[in-house]
């Protein structure tokens, strides 16, 4: 009898707690988890559940109502907006994508056209972009990666990344490959830039947070949360929290805040 009463109480408590479910981009996932923990600490009775799946899954899950919020580490495609016209996009952070090369590369900057030419294979020697005579080896992420999707969308347009590219399945592996192989070039999120590789200025603008904010650095992707219609209740509270000074301070630990 006593047991039944206790379990009833637990059930009642559980149904009182509000759950906000989030799914999508694995780039945004760790950020959303950290933000979720901070939010739970200040809002008792709300639990935030975050799962992965990738940007496309995030958009689809939010649109179909299987989760409250979808995560996408890229722009929401026109086709997605056309399919789900009531979708609302909340940009919570920005991430620059740096074009990086082996540290001994003598080139310091490239134009967007040159970057595109290098990655589609039409520019195949560093001497064609002002460097020493050495064949260019492209290093890229695998098909399906959010960083690759964002790079393709912003830089490549209709062009395809060359078949000859060395593909590595993580940002860390891309960095090691570039660091150990002369003549290589690749792309990495700003968070992965260090002294083991060289990051190019693109269109005359060096890859720094300042240049992302003033709009001069061209290769930038948004990290988005999406909801169907304007959010309300706990979902709205969470998104407001993410965009608040406290939330944006957490964002600033790894990405470029939007406020």
């Amino acid at each position: 009898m006593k047991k039944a009463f206790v379990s009833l109480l637990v059930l009642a408590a559980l149904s009182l707690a509000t759950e906000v479910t989030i799914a999508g981009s694995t780039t945004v996932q760790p950020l959303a988890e950290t933000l979720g923990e901070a939010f739970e600490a200040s809002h008792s009775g709300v639990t935030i559940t975050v799962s992965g799946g990738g940007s496309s899954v995030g958009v689809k899950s939010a649109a179909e109502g299987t989760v409250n919020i979808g995560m996408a580490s890229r722009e929401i495609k026109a086709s997605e907006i056309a399919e789900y016209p009531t979708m609302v996009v909340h940009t919570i952070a920005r991430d620059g994508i740096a074009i990086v090369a082996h540290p001994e590369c003598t080139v310091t900057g490239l134009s967007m056209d040159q970057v595109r030419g290098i990655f589609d294979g039409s520019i195949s020697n560093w001497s064609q972009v002002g460097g020493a005579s050495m064949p260019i080896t492209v290093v890229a992420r695998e098909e399906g990666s959010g960083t690759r999707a964002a790079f393709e969308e912003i830089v490549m347009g209709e062009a395809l990344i060359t078949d000859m590219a060395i593909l590595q399945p993580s940002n860390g592996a891309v960095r090691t490959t570039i660091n150990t192989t002369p003549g290589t070039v690749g792309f990495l999120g700003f968070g992965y830039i260090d002294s083991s590789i060289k990051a190019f200025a693109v269109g005359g603008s060096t890859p720094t947070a300042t240049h992302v904010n003033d709009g001069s650095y061209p290769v930038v992707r948004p990290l988005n949360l999406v909801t169907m219609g304007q959010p309300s209740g706990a979902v709205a509270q969470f998104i407001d929290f993410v965009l608040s000074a406290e939330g944006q301070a957490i964002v600033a630990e790894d990405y470029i805040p939007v406020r």
Partner: protein
Amino acid sequence: MPHGRSTVKNRVENTMKTVLMISALSSVAIVFLIGFFTLKESIPAFRGIGPLNMLTEKVWRPGQDSYGILAMIAGSGLVTLGSVLIGVPLALGCAVFLAEVAPKWMAEIVRPSVELLAGIPSVVYGLFGMVVLVPLVRGIEVPGNTGFGLLSASVVLAVMILPTIASVAESALRSVPRSYYNGSLALGATRWETIWRVNIPAARSGILSAVVLGLGRALGETIAMIMVIGNSVIMPKALTGNPLSIFLSRARTLTGNIAVEISYATGVHESALFATGVVLFLLIMIVNTSARGLLKASIEGGRRK
């Protein structure tokens, strides 16, 4: 109570029998479950793309809805061939040395070291390959050679299959009756002639199964391959006039295709990766079956002599 004790004994006996049978059957059930699941998940891809298209198409670009895995079949085949070419002679030499030549104290040092090779995690081989072997291979001055490719992958794989082949081949050689060896020496053959003409032929079925075990391991290896082979989806081709330079070409293996792309794949793309798994499954089954056939033939051939 002798009667009661024997009932207890019987009960223990029967329980043990059931427990053992359940463990044996569960491994069979697991194989079938995995096979069934992989096949089921691959059906949308096979339906949408067509099995023949998948197997004969060279272009794999999931973004453009191209799902050909011929390049990966070629990659897996070539890297396995390369590892066998390098690894088998090395492993057999090692096995012959341990079984026939080495003094006891030396064998006791060499054998555990070879066995230790099998205990190194595959990602460590990959890391070693990536930072040591790849730069070495890059030293071969051929245009287009970056060090990442079939040669580096074959060398890494050769070392990985060496302990399996060496230890199975060694026990095969050891199981050859001593009288063969003594008889051959008594007939005036040298020690080397005896090993080459008597012991190795007598152990050939065991040596063959050793090689096949290595082959299976080579086809299935994943992480170390991803780290050194370059993963480009291209048909491997010779970089210069010398056909051997095909081993400097980058490639992707069937296993690598699954591991590299599965984390973000959805829909047909995901299903196509399962289809890659089905092809790999079939390939390994063909290797194992033909090996068993070879083994049987060689044993029967030996009997006829």
